[in-house]
């Protein structure tokens, strides 16, 4: 609702003219902390994710960091897998699959990603925990903000800010640690020896974390996140959403405990507004499904506690479906969900198969193009090729090089090369042919490169042999 509403009498008329401000100053949200089932569930989502983020870069495999996006060397290491730039398609597909998996889950259970696993939620909840520690519970925080600046207030605020900065800094360093080996980065950073680029990115992510989790909070969900805007497109009447049972709860109103409220014409909702007080995005779920709701389930916890005290059945607010609420049956395995799942399963299967059958060899043929062909002093036609042989394995290999095509070319160059692990070898090769034998000016040639140690590691690339045009 607009904050800056004014009433203005128009001269000579009875009509009221209201003036709205298109922009609204945000009201700070003070969330109340209450115990409950969904709050407990978050321990099993927040803690592991948080811990994984921070501890993963410290793992080493084969003498190098296990998860390391090595930009200078153009290699992404994810545990035992190494991805080269030529594998970028796989990375793209991995991201597509991740997004699609998220959509599949959204069809089934709505936006639980937001409420339980999204980094914005995870970090905001940690920052809120720090806030709770330093400034107290909801009422204490509201009072503290209204209070004058005493030494105690300064100390509490400073303590909170310091905790926030520490969490943000550790987050920032860890993020950069995925790109710049963290075991070197941490000592270098704190002895001011880190590379300026590393320092810049660390401080930038520190700042962004601090702003996002400290100040922006629900503004990210409301105004910045694209998933927040389109997630409801995947909902149908069988999707689990956090919902207030209007038929049961309305009309709402206060009543004495133990009174027979139904004879008084009241629904189960006692209008305690605890569901509003716990909501991290500051909405009233009793207004129905709203895009601000991140499906965190804290309002369910709050309401259940009250229902329990009042002796009413639980789940006045619950994770339920529209079909359930209208009395119909919820069908889990409906065409939409089955379709999403099958497509997802197919993509994952193809992806895993592709990754498992990758060969650690990449061959590129670069034909000298400025000269179409060359005539040797013996009158033979000659084409020059640069072969780039990339050994993507982590052991050295020797490879044989073979040429085939429609003609019996004379091959001048290495037939056997040795390439170190991770090295890209360049070798020059020339093919010669008597022009009298050449029937067309452009003919295909095939270079086959095979590892001596493992015949499965082989690749054939096509190139062209050019010669004079016969008139």
């Amino acid at each position, binding site marked *: 609702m607009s904050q800056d509403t004014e009433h203005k009498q128009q001269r000579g008329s009875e009509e009221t*003219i209201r003036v*709205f401000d*298109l*922009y609204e100053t945000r009201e700070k949200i003070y969330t109340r902390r209450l115990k409950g089932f969904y709050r407990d569930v978050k321990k099993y989502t927040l803690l592991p994710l948080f811990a994984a983020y921070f501890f993963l870069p410290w793992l080493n495999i084969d003498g190098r960091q296990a998860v390391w996006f090595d930009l200078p060397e153009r290699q992404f290491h994810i545990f035992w897998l190494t991805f080269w730039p030529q594998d970028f398609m796989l990375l793209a597909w991995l991201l597509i699959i991740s997004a699609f998996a998220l959509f599949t889950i959204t069809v089934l259970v709505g936006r639980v990603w937001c409420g339980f696993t999204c980094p914005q939620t995870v970090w905001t909840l940690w920052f809120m925990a720090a806030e709770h520690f330093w400034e107290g519970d909801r009422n204490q925080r509201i009072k503290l903000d209204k209070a004058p600046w005493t030494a105690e207030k300064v100390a509490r605020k400073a303590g909170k800010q310091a905790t926030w900065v520490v969490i943000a800094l550790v987050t920032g360093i860890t993020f950069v640690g995925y790109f710049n080996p963290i075991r070197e980065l941490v000592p270098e950073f704190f002895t001011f020896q880190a590379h300026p680029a590393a320092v810049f990115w660390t401080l930038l992510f520190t700042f962004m974390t601090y702003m996002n989790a400290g100040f922006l909070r629900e503004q990210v969900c*409301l*105004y910045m996140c694209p998933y927040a805007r389109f997630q409801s497109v995947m909902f149908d009447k069988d999707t689990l959403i956090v919902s207030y049972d209007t038929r049961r709860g309305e009309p709402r109103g206060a009543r004495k405990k133990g009174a027979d409220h139904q004879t008084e014409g009241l629904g189960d909702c006692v209008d305690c507004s605890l569901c509003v007080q716990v909501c991290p995005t500051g909405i009233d779920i009793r207004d129905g499904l709203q895009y601000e709701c991140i499906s965190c389930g804290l309002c369910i916890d709050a309401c259940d506690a009250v229902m329990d005290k009042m002796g009413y059945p639980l789940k006045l607010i619950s994770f339920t479906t529209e079909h359930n609420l209208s009395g119909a049956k919820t069908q889990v395995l409906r065409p939409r969900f089955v379709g999403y799942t099958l497509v997802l399963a197919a993509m994952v299967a193809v992806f895993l198969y592709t990754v498992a059958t990758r060969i650690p060899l990449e061959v590129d043929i670069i034909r000298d193009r400025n*000269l179409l062909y*060359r005539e040797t002093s013996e*009158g033979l036609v000659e084409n020059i090729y640069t072969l780039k042989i990339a050994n993507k394995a982590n052991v050295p290999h020797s490879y044989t090089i073979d040429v085939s095509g429609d003609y019996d070319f004379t091959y001048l160059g290495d037939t056997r090369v040795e390439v170190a692990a991770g090295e890209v070898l360049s070798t*020059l090769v020339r093919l010669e042919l008597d022009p009298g034998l050449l029937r067309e000016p452009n003919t295909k040639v095939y270079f086959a490169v095979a590892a001596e140690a493992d015949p499965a590691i082989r690749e054939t690339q096509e190139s062209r042999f050019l010669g004079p045009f016969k008139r």
Partner: protein
Amino acid sequence: MSTFWSLWIIVIVVINIAGSVWLLYATRRVEVSGTQEEGQPPTTGHIYDGIEEYDNPLPKWWFNMFMLTVIFSVIYLVLYPGMGNFKGLLGWTSIGQWQEQIDAADEQYGPLFAKFHDTTVAELAANPEALKMGGRLFANNCSTCHGSDGRGGYGFPNLADDDWLYGGSPEAIKYTITHGVNSDYDPSTRRVMMPAQGPMIGDAGVDNAANYVFSLSGRKHDAAKAEEGAKVFATYCAACHGADGKGNQMLGAPNLTDDVWLYGGSPEFVKHSIRSGRAGAMPAHGDLLKDDKIHLLTAYVYSLSQQ
């Protein structure tokens, strides 16, 4: 640019920035008549063809960020060029930025090349590191014309054999790389030209001379024509190519007895060379590559002919 266009740009920029700010403030307040209905979601009261408009305000921090971008634009336009001909207080130019990067690269990589400065070409030709560096310089600068393997092509000499137009000593090679051949930009370039002989000796003379030249290289030829050709050769060709046809490196006149044909060795190509003459060209690399890199390149090219 001219004053008119400079002003044109300044006016457009100012109108856009001021206009954006005006638009921001002008659309900020929405006036609506009528009172808010009880129990209904807040609307602005506007009705367009029966479609109503909810009052869902935008966050104030969006407005603040927009203003920040305006402030940023103004500061940017003071520091950098953007207001017509005004160069900006920082004096930034794209060429200046390029020059800075070149200077930084020279400072960083210069020592890598300079460390070979005092070693002779002959020694460098046996040094694997120098050859790798020289090889990469060759790939970047020379291979387009001379081929990745340096064996040349039609009109581009083969650097891997021991047949040299201007001399194959390290000094000669270095001079050729530095000053080029028939370069328009270097006054010290090698000047080379074979005049067209066709007008003077006629078709028959060209044919005869070609056969004589083939005989010098031990190629198939018509003996009678070659005998006539010998006379043509002595009169017109020997001055540059030498009486024995072994060429003259001072003039860049090729050796005609070694069966190496820069412009093609088939009869039609050789006759074309005699009839119409030849004047090859190679760019001068002195300004682009400078001494240290050319030193390494010389070593690499020299090594090609030593294998």
